[in-house]
């Protein structure tokens, strides 16, 4: 010690200045407009700003928005009703939309087709007739349907020409337009994920909340149950449960049973997240303060703790949706769960089970495309949300 003091004594003292101005401890440098905007912004605004910088997530969000708006108006978006059989156009290949005929601009149209029997190959073939030009009609009346099951209407976004046909993605074995069926299928497939996640979200918050807030033996019990659930491989469990749903039930009841099954199996991840967050938050001072003031545990959890990590939960829930959509698709493909005449992407893929049929009519496999697009969009969007979920970092 003495050595150091000796050493310091050898140095010349630093220049010493004292400001005589009175010092106001509350005076702060004024914030710039930008800083002020940032400081006053709510948590959700901050999240939005952060999400906005994540271009891929933004694009994915837009794609999802378009998809979900479409599910509201499938009857209008699809050129045909889901069960309309356009006989004899069975197993018709997809038609390309053209704009020019012999170098002359006509606007969007398709060439008509003729059914011919190819006696060499012993099969029916559709020959494209390049003389038969069928211009598409837009905002038109076409195939009649019952809008939302409420009233009859025949308005469509796009229709085939009068007495013409429009098979953008071909037709199936019964002559139903695949594009229309995929659009109709979106209604079921996309809502399955939302409803399923809502169920697992509620279960996860409730059970995880119990475990995290009370801790002790409740926590132990919940943890054991979660471990148990997680050691079941999801898909076989889903298969077993949906095999238990009688196929004779009302399709709507079956739909809800399937979503409940999807949600029941999937809540463990969310419950874990809620639990670990609550465990750390309940040690915070504001929780103790609320407890000392005599607040009810439900009030503490709902009002003080949940908002702290709600954004996180929403992000994880978003990431859980694609799993459910895939679950439904897999079940539908296997022929469990939803059954025709209900149309979902999984049910549509069920006809792709026979790979030899797919080799001849490759368009049967097309429902794969919207599934992959949706799953990708949810992944990117959920990732962006998760990054944005903690704007203060």
């Amino acid at each position: 010690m003495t050595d150091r003091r000796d050493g310091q004594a050898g140095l010349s003292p630093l220049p010493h200045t004292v400001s005589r101005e009175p010092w106001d401890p509350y005076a702060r440098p004024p914030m710039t407009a930008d800083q002020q905007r940032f400081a006053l912004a709510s948590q959700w605004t901050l999240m939005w700003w952060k999400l906005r910088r994540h271009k891929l997530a933004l694009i994915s969000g837009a794609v999802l928005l378009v998809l979900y708006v479409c599910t509201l108006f499938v009857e209008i978006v699809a050129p045909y009703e889901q069960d309309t059989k356009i006989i004899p156009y069975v197993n018709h290949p997809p038609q390309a939309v053209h704009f020019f005929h012999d170098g002359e601009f006509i606007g969007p149209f398709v060439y008509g087709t003729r059914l011919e029997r190819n006696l060499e190959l012993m099969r029916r073939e559709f020959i494209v007739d390049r003389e038969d030009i069928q211009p598409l009609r837009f905002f038109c009346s076409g195939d009649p349907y019952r809008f939302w099951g409420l009233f009859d209407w025949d308005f469509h976004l796009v229709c085939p020409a009068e007495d013409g046909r429009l098979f953008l993605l071909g037709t199936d074995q019964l002559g139903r337009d695949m594009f229309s069926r995929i659009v109709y299928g979106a209604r079921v497939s996309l809502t399955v994920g939302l409803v399923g996640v809502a169920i697992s979200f509620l279960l996860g918050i409730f059970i995880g909340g119990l475990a995290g807030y009370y801790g002790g033996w409740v926590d132990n019990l919940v943890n054991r149950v979660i471990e148990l659930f997680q050691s079941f491989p999801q898909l076989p469990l889903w298969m077993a449960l949906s095999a238990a749903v009688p196929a004779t039930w009302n399709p709507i009841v079956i739909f809800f049973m399937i979503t409940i099954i999807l949600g029941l199996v999937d809540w463990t991840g969310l419950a874990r997240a809620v639990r670990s967050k609550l465990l750390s938050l309940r040690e915070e001072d504001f929780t103790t303060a609320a407890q000392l003031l005599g607040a009810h545990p439900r009030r503490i959890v709902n009002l003080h703790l949940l908002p702290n990590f709600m954004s996180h939960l929403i992000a994880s829930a978003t990431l859980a949706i694609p799993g459910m959509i895939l679950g439904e698709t897999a079940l539908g493909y296997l022929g469990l769960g939803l059954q025709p005449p209900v149309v979902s992407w999984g049910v549509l893929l069920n006809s792709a089970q026979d790979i030899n049929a797919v080799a001849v009519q490759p368009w049967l496999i097309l429902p794969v495309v919207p599934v992959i697009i949706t799953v990708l969009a949810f992944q990117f969007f959920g990732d962006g949300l998760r990054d944005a979920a903690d704007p203060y970092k």
Partner: protein
Amino acid sequence: MLAYIARRILVMIPTLLVISAVSFVIIQLPPGDYLTTLENELLSRGEALNPAQLQYLRETYGLDQPLVIQYFNWIGNALQGDWGFSFEHQAPVTTVVGDSLFLTIVITAATTLFIWVVSFPIAIYSATHQYSIGDYTLTFIGFIGLATPNFLLALILLYLANVYFGTSIGGLMDPIYIEQPMSWAKFFSVLEHLWVPVIVIGTSGTAAMIRRLRANLLDELQKQYYVTALAKGLPRGRALMKYPLRMALNPFIADIGGILPQLISGATVVAVVLSLPTSGRILLESLQSQDMYLAGSFIFWLSGLTVVGVLLSDLALAVLDPRIRLSGGSVK
């Protein structure tokens, strides 16, 4: 270490018991039993089972007993190696399940290896070359792999192979070996066919593993001990191998517990798509025809596989990391 292993195995027993009970309850959920299915099938063919015969069958299989008694009968016999009788296949469950379960294990083990072997070097490259073109490309491919559902991937591969090569990539061995006893020739044939399902099932797991290992490694590369090691003149590769890599290795093994159920899930559908002789198709059929002992044993065994897998990964972790075997808990 021994105490840790013993305790870990003891904990497993109640888990397995509960799993068996849950499996049993689930397969009892659908109204009716296999005999109802049988009756309906016969009726649709215009034949009828006479009631006395039905009653006799019901009594022999113990289907008239209360559920609890049926469960204890089943699990009691199961402990002695008798997993019940498959109505559909007219054979003991063990015979039906045995081979396909073994193949499921082979596929799952191969996929796990595949995930390790592929994700390890890619993750190291990605982490050490952060923000390089290679990193971006690999991350992007990983994203696609993560998002492409494996059974759709299988479907697309199957279609492409059918159209462009005219061959079927389905199956797990050359047709001549089906129904043959295990031999070296059959074994090699299986090896030849194994890569398709392994890639299909393993893609998303690999992608997930790459992302996690990359993130872990990036964290470790920031730490001072690594900077110190570099500052003291340790060559980069050696410093990497000696310290951060070992730290980042933990989740590499611990994650297997989480990935295993996914792999088995994936293997089930992919098996149906690619018509592999593993559990998928048989499980599906047994569920549809309410062949309860078969379905129940399947669900139990598939879940049991993951439990054992998690046990193995925990034990491996304990070997690797003294903190775990000394404190007794898992460090995550």
